[in-house]
């Protein structure tokens, strides 16, 4: 690759009191190139990433500089965005153009396309967590009055071991309804009204793209590739415009079965869709059904958060095959993977939620506090198996407070921070935030 900035070189930028060392080029795309840079003393300075634009990109997007300034001023919606930190303009005439500083993407995060392509080991729980974080990120972004305009698999990164995410390429972010930024979105993710040239991207089209991205993460398939895709020989631009715009039809549309997945070509969709509870499936049917032509009817970020958090609460491990299941624990259910009947699980009743007792499930602040919005990054407690006898399930206190437990024989125990109590004899646990009752089937 030919790099726009000299690797190993040091450059002075307006507004930076220290020179910036270009450590190495990290990659390039259609807009520009990204470099690892160091600000301050060599070897001990701050390591950051610098995105530098191609002149062609600057020329076609006259509002880019102002938009970046605006985003830098407003600040990141939350920590899941690799947000622009500072606009960099060179002090000298060379190099021409400008760029912006952001944090380096930490090791361990991989492109979401690897998951969609089936080449990533990740648990269903962590995929659902990633989806929750994605909905949360867009929730915060939209609450700030901003819109993203171009979300796709290409600018989402995942940490497979935790379900954490990073949203990159935030340079199209703008105040919703303002500006004439040049980006329209990515075909396959663009809302039909944008693809067909009837609207500019904004928060309403973000909701459509978000639904597509959530579907692709949860299903490893595409919401519109069913029978109608099979009728297409050459999948080129005009074909995509029909598939995702003019003739778009959700493959699981509850009324119109005209675009159902093919059992062979689209097996991914048929295998993964039954994993998820009706409450979650209905949100997709809404966004891809009536929401296809009526942007105001699309599933809102808050609805996604609620349904995804509920899904995580319902996670139960199949006693026959060990797979993760997510269906409503109060109904008659069978494992999507092995078909075995799922027994009614032990559940933990909290003031504002109910969580299935399964290793890896977590109790969250919103389960005890009606005013707390759904959040999963600071759990109160974690269900864990005993380290030497995995058949014993315990509840670990992740808070800073000592909790009081009551056992079925009336005995009281104290559960200090970081300690785990066996669930088998436990009747109730009084946490600092509220009571946890053990409900046995």
């Amino acid at each position, binding site marked *: *690759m030919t790099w726009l900035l000299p690797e190993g070189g040091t450059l002075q930028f307006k507004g930076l009191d220290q020179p910036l060392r270009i450590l190495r080029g990290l990659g390039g795309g259609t807009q520009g190139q990204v470099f690892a840079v160091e600000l301050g003393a060599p070897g001990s300075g701050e390591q950051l990433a610098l995105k530098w634009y191609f002149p062609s990109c600057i020329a*076609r997007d006259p509002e880019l500089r102002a938009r970046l300034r605006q985003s830098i001023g407003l600040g990141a919606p939350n920590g899941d965005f690799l947000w622009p930190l500072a606009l960099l303009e060179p002090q000298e005439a060379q190099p021409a153009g400008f760029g912006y500083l952001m944090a380096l993407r930490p090791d361990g995060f991989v492109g979401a396309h690897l998951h969609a*392509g089936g080449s990533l080991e990740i648990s269903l729980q962590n995929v659902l967590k990633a989806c929750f974080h994605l909905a949360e990120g867009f929730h915060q972004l939209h609450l700030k009055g901003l819109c993203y305009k171009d979300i796709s698999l290409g600018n989402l990164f995942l940490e497979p071991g935790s379900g954490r995410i990073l949203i990159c390429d935030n340079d199209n972010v703008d105040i919703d309804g303002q500006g004439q930024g040049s980006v329209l979105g990515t075909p396959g993710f663009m809302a039909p009204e944008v693809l067909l040239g009837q609207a500019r991207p904004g928060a309403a089209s973000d909701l459509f793209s978000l639904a597509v991205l959530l579907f692709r993460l949860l299903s490893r398939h595409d919401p519109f590739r069913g029978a109608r895709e099979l009728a297409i020989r050459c999948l080129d*631009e005009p074909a995509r415009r029909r598939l995702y715009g003019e003739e778009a039809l959700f493959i699981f549309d509850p009324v119109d079965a005209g675009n159902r997945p093919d059992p062979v070509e689209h097996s*991914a969709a048929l295998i*993964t869709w039954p994993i998820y509870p009706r409450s979650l499936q209905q949100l997709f049917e809404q966004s891809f059904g009536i929401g296809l032509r009526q942007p105001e009817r699309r599933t809102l970020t808050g609805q996604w958060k609620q349904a995804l958090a509920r899904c995580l609460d319902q996670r139960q491990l199949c006693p026959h095959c060990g797979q993760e299941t997510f269906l409503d624990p109060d109904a008659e259910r069978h494992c999507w993977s092995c078909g075995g009947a799922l027994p009614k699980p032990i559940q933990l009743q909290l003031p504002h939620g109910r969580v299935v007792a399964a290793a890896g499930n977590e109790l969250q602040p919103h389960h005890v506090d009606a005013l707390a919005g759904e959040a999963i990054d600071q759990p109160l407690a974690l269900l864990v198996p005993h380290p030497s006898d995995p058949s014993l399930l315990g509840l670990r206190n992740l808070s800073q407070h000592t909790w009081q437990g009551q056992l079925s024989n009336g005995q009281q125990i104290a559960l200090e921070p970081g300690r785990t109590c066996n669930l088998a004899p436990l009747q109730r646990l009084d946490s600092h935030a509220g009571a946890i009752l053990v409900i046995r089937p």
Partner: protein
Amino acid sequence: MPFPNVRLSNRPLHFIYLCDCSGSMAAQGKMQALNQAIRQSLPGMAEVARQNPEARVLVRAVRFADQAAWHLAEPTPVQQLHWRDLEAGGITAMGAALELVAGALQSPPMEERALPPVLVLISDGQPTDDFEAGLAQLMRLPWAQKAVRLAIAMGHDADLDVLQQFIGPEPAGRGRSPRRPLQASNATTLAQYIQWASTAVVGAASMPASRVVMPGERPAATTPPSGSNIPLPDLPPTLLDPIDDVGPLVW
């Protein structure tokens, strides 16, 4: 437990090099430069293929000199491809090369469903056989009409009119365009164009990239310009020979 072992079904993307191996390619290390450029481009091409869940990138190559023959006959996944050097010697049977490719784009052997194929024609001279007949035979095929057709002119002796006919109608205006023959008058520029074709263009043909509108343009058109069914990415910034792309030198 891991996410179920499923993935989005993908489609083949056929990428075919048509390489001029006539005697003139032996001069000034042009043949070696082309071999190097293709070999160096393979890791980047493999990375694009890896990042793209929707495509199976399969590479083939035709060599043409006194006659045309498959240099790499088997559609080979780019990750498994080891480039064997081409050797120069003979005349320029470009028309025969197009006929050979036409045979490959017929169904069968062409799959019923695929992504648009990418054809890259590289030449430094003039065809010595019936180019028109070969092109006509190729362009009768729907898959050839749907294909992204690119041409790279090595040096200043290449027949730009012939290469333009292969690409299709010339775009309006002047200046560099992927819908014109790309002039590579030095090894660095050649390598940049080969890299561009094997990464950016493969990406565009297989997985849609972000769409932009030009300032002042109405967003109504996410339709690519007429004569193309795939929007082509920007050309790479290259080291230009000052007399590349200036238009005809004498008329």
